[in-house]
C-alpha cells in the first residue's frame, strides 16, 4: 500500500522529457529551496529540542510544581493547525493584533527562516516532549544509580548514562518532527519562506506542471529517505531493557531549590508563546466574531471529525503495534524495511499522497471512491508512523525477557504477549493513538481530496475560513479544535495517574 504514491510519482516524473527535465529540475531555484528545506529542518529540530528536553526533564525528574498541568499544556500545541499558529504569530504583531488593539503596539513581523522555524517548533515540540518523557518514565533508575555508585557525579552520570538511553526516543521524535517539517506548507507559506514542500504544492495545485511537482516530490522523498536511513542506523542494535530482577524503583526526585521559580518561569514562557499567543488571538477573533456564526453547523462538524479521526487512530495503532513488534523482536532487513515503510507513508507529501490514492481508488476499486473508508485508510497509512515511535521505544524498554519467562511457565506465545507485554504497552499504544487522533483531526490536504462530497470536519472549516481571510468566522472552529484535543490529552494522561 505504501508504494502506491511512489509508483504514482515515478510514473508522473517519468513523463518529463529530458530537455525539459534539465530546464526545470536543475535550476538555481531548485537548489535554493532544497537548501532552505534543510536549513528549516535543522532549525526546527534544534529549537523544538531546546524547548522540549528541559521540560521533559523538569516534569519527570524534579519537584517542579504543577507537573500534570505542565504536561497537558506541553501537549496541547499539537492541536493547533500550522496555518493558525502562523496567523497568530503574524496577527499578534499586526494592525489587527490584540497588542495593537490594547496597547497600540506593533512588533516586527516574524518571517523567513526564523518565522517558519518558530511557528513549526511551537507546535511540533510536543512530539519530542512526549517521546522523551515517555522514555524517562520508563527508564530504570538503577542504571544511573549504578553509575553514581561507581563514583560518577550526578551530572556525569546523567550525561554518560541517562542521555544515551534517551537517544532512541529523541531520534524517533526527531524523525517525526523532521518529516512533519518536510511536509508542512501552510505555515511556511504564510511566513514567506520557500521550501520544497511549498514549491511542490504550488506546482501541483497548478496541475499544469505535474511532472515538475513529481520530481520535486521525489527529491523531497529522497531527503526523507536519508533521514529514515540515518535514524535507523543510529538507532539500531541498542539494548535498553533492564536486566536486573525485582521491581524497579521510581527515579529520585531532584530538588530544584531556588531554581524552582526559574524552572516554572521557563515552562510558563513556553506555554505562553505556544498556547497563549494562539489562544489570545483566537479569543480576540472570537470577541469580534459577527453574531451570525452558524452555530447549528458546529455539532455536525464535530461529529464529522470524530467519525474520521477515531477509526483512523484505531487503524493506525493496529498497523503500528505489529510493525513495531516484529521490528524490535525479530530485527532483520525485512522487518526493518517494513518499519521504515510506515515512516515512508508519513514522509510522502500529503498532496501527491492524496492524488495517488484518488488515482488508485478510481483505477482499482471505483466503488469505494470518495467514501469514508478510503479516507480513513489513507489517513491511517499516512499517520501510522506517529504511533510506531512510542510503541517501539516502550518495546525496547520492556525487552523480551518478561514474555519469555511467561512462556516458560507454559503460556503460549500469543497468550504471553497478551497477558504480559500488552498491558505494559497500553500506555504507549494510547499515546500513539492520541498522537494520530490529534494529527488526523487537523489534517487537511488528504481530507480535502478524499472526503465524501458534502462531508466536513473542523479543520476543513477552519481552513476554508482563514483561507478566505474570514479569520473571525474561523475562530469558533479553531477554539473548538483546541478544546477538543485538550480533552483527549487529559484522557490520555488520566490513564497513567500514578505517574507525574
Amino acid at each position: 500500500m505504501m508504494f502506491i504514491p511512489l509508483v504514482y510519482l515515478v510514473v508522473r516524473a517519468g513523463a518529463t522529457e529530458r530537455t525539459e527535465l534539465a530546464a526545470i529540475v536543475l535550476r538555481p531555484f531548485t537548489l535554493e529551496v532544497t537548501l532552505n528545506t534543510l536549513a528549516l529542518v535543522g532549525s526546527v529540530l534544534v529549537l523544538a529540542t531546546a524547548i522540549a528536553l528541559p521540560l521533559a526533564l523538569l516534569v519527570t525528574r524534579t519537584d517542579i510544581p504543577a507537573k500534570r498541568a505542565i504536561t497537558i499544556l506541553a501537549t496541547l500545541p499539537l492541536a493547533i493547525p500550522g496555518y493558525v499558529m502562523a496567523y497568530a504569530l503574524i496577527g499578534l504583531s499586526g494592525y489587527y493584533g490584540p497588542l495593537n488593539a490594547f496597547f497600540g503596539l506593533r512588533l516586527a513581523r516574524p518571517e523567513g527562516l526564523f518565522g517558519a522555524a518558530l511557528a513549526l517548533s511551537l507546535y511540533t515540540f510536543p512530539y519530542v516532549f512526549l517521546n522523551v518523557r515517555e522514555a524517562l518514565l520508563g527508564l530504570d533508575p538503577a542504571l544511573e544509580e549504578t553509575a553514581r555508585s561507581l563514583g560518577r557525579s550526578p551530572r556525569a552520570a546523567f550525561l554518560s548514562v541517562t542521555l544515551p538511553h534517551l537517544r532512541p526516543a529523541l531520534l524517533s521524535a526527531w524523525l517525526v518532527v523532521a518529516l512533519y517539517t518536510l511536509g508542512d506548507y501552510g505555515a511556511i507559506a504564510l511566513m514567506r519562506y520557500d521550501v520544497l514542500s511549498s514549491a511542490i504544492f504550488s506546482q501541483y495545485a497548478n496541475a499544469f506542471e505535474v511532472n515538475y511537482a513529481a520530481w520535486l516530490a521525489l527529491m523531497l522523498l529522497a531527503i526523507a529517505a536519508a533521514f529514515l536511513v540515518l535514524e535507523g542506523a543510529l538507532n539500531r542494535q541498542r539494548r535498553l531493557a533492564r536486566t536486573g530482577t525485582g521491581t524497579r524503583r521510581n527515579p529520585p526526585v531532584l530538588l530544584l531549590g531556588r531554581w524552582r521559580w526559574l524552572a516554572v518561569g521557563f515552562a510558563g514562557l513556553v506555554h505562553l508563546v505556544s498556547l497563549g499567543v494562539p489562544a489570545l488571538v483566537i479569543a480576540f477573533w472570537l470577541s469580534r466574531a459577527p453574531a451570525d456564526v452558524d452555530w447549528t453547523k458546529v455539532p455536525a462538524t464535530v461529529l464529522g471529525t470524530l467519525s474520521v479521526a477515531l477509526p483512523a487512530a484505531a487503524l493506525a495503532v493496529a498497523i503500528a503495534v505489529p510493525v513495531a513488534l516484529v521490528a524490535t523482536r525479530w530485527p532483520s532487513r525485512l522487518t526493518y524495511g517494513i518499519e521504515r515503510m510506515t515512516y515512508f507513508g508519513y514522509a510522502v507529501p500529503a498532496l501527491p499522497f492524496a492524488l495517488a490514492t484518488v488515482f488508485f481508488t478510481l483505477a482499482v476499486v471505483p466503488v469505494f471512491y470518495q467514501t469514508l473508508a478510503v479516507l480513513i485508510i489513507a489517513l491511517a497509512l499516512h499517520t501510522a508512523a506517529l504511533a510506531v515511535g512510542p510503541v517501539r521505544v516502550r518495546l525496547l524498554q520492556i525487552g523480551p525477557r518478561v514474555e519469555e519467562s511467561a512462556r516458560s511457565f507454559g503460556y503460549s506465545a500469543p497468550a504471553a504477549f497478551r497477558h504480559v507485554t500488552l498491558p505494559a504497552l497500553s500506555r504507549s499504544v494510547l499515546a500513539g493513538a492520541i498522537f494520530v487522533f490529534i494529527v488526523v483531526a487537523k489534517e487537511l490536504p488528504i481530507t480535502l481530496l478524499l472526503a465524501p462530497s458534502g462531508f466536513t470536519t473542523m479543520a476543513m472549516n477552519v481552513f476554508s475560513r482563514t483561507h478566505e481571510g474570514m479569520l473571525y468566522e474561523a475562530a469558533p472552529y479553531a477554539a473548538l479544535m483546541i478544546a477538543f484535543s485538550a480533552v483527549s490529552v487529559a484522557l490520555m494522561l488520566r490513564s497513567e495517574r500514578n505517574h507525574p
Partner: protein
Amino acid sequence: MRKTIFAGALSIATIISGFAAKAQELTVYSGRGESFAGPVFRIFEEQTGIKVKARYGSTAELSALLKEEGAKSPADVFLAQDAGALIENRTLFADAPKVLSETALPEFRSNDPKWLATSGRARTLVYSKERVKADQLPKSVFDLTKPEWKGKVGYSPKNASFQAFLTALRVQEGEEKAKAFVKGLVDNGAKTYANNVAIVQAVADGEIDAGLVNSYYLTRFVARDAKVPVAQTFFDKGDIGNLLFVSGAGIVETSKNKENAAKLLEFFLSPAVQQHFASAVGEYPVIKGVIPNPTLTGSLASPKDYAPNVPLEKLGDVSATKKLLTELGLL
C-alpha cells in the same frame, strides 16, 4: 408558527422525495470557499428540494482532481474562482444553458458555450491611507517597478487572480513585456505573499505600502472595521492592472443530473443571488438591476469603464503564465 409548519412540511417533503429519487442530489466541486458558496447552496436546497453535496477546495486542486477522475467523476458542477481553470478544462464540460449566457452583462459574457460567469471581479491596488498620498498613487501598474516603490509593494504570484492578470498582460502586451514587468517587481524588492488577505493585512500592518489584489478583499476588512487604514483604487483608465475577469461555473459532461445542474447555474444568475454576491461579498454582479456594494465607490463602482479590453476567453492560457513565473523562481 405558520412558517415553521410550512418549513416542517417542506423538509418532510424533501426527505420523502429524497427517498423517492436519488437523482434529486447534486455534487458540486466548489473552488469558491464555503463561506461564500455555502449560504447560496442552502437556499437553493430549500427552494428546489435538490440536495447539494459540496466539495470545497482550491480551484486548482479541484481542477487537478477533476482531470484525475476523468469519466468517473461524480461531480455535476464545477464552480471555479477564476475562469482560467474552466477554459483549461473545457473539454470536460457539457454546454451550459444558452439562455443564461445571454442574460449576462456583455463585459461578463462568455462566448464559450462550455461555461458561464457567475460573478465579476476586478484587480485593484490597495494602499495605505497613512503612508500613501493621493498624488503619489501610481497611474499604471508598470509604475510599481519604479524606484519610488522599492520594497513597498506586495503581490501573490501563487494566487489564481494574479495569474489571470499576468495572463492578460502576456496576451495584451506580449511575453517580453510581461516577463520584464515581473522581473521588475522582483528586482524592485516587491514582497510575495501567500494570498490576497495576507496582502491587505500587510498593508494595514505597515509592512508594505501597496499591494495587487482583487476588489472584494478590502470590502471584507471594511465590513469588520470601518476604520481600517487601507484604501483601494484603479490605475488610469484602460490600464492592464484594472483587469476585469470572472468567477464561473461549468456542468460536467459525465454528470447524470444535467437538468438539476442547469437549475443551479440558473439560480446563481438569479437577481437574489447576484444581490447577495454584490452586498455580502463585494463582487460585481453579472446581470443588470443589482444594487452595487456601498464600499465600491468612485471608479470602483464602474469597473467596465476602467478595465482593459481583454476578452475573457483569452485568459485560459494560464500554463504559459505559470511557466513564466516558474522560470523566475516565483512558483
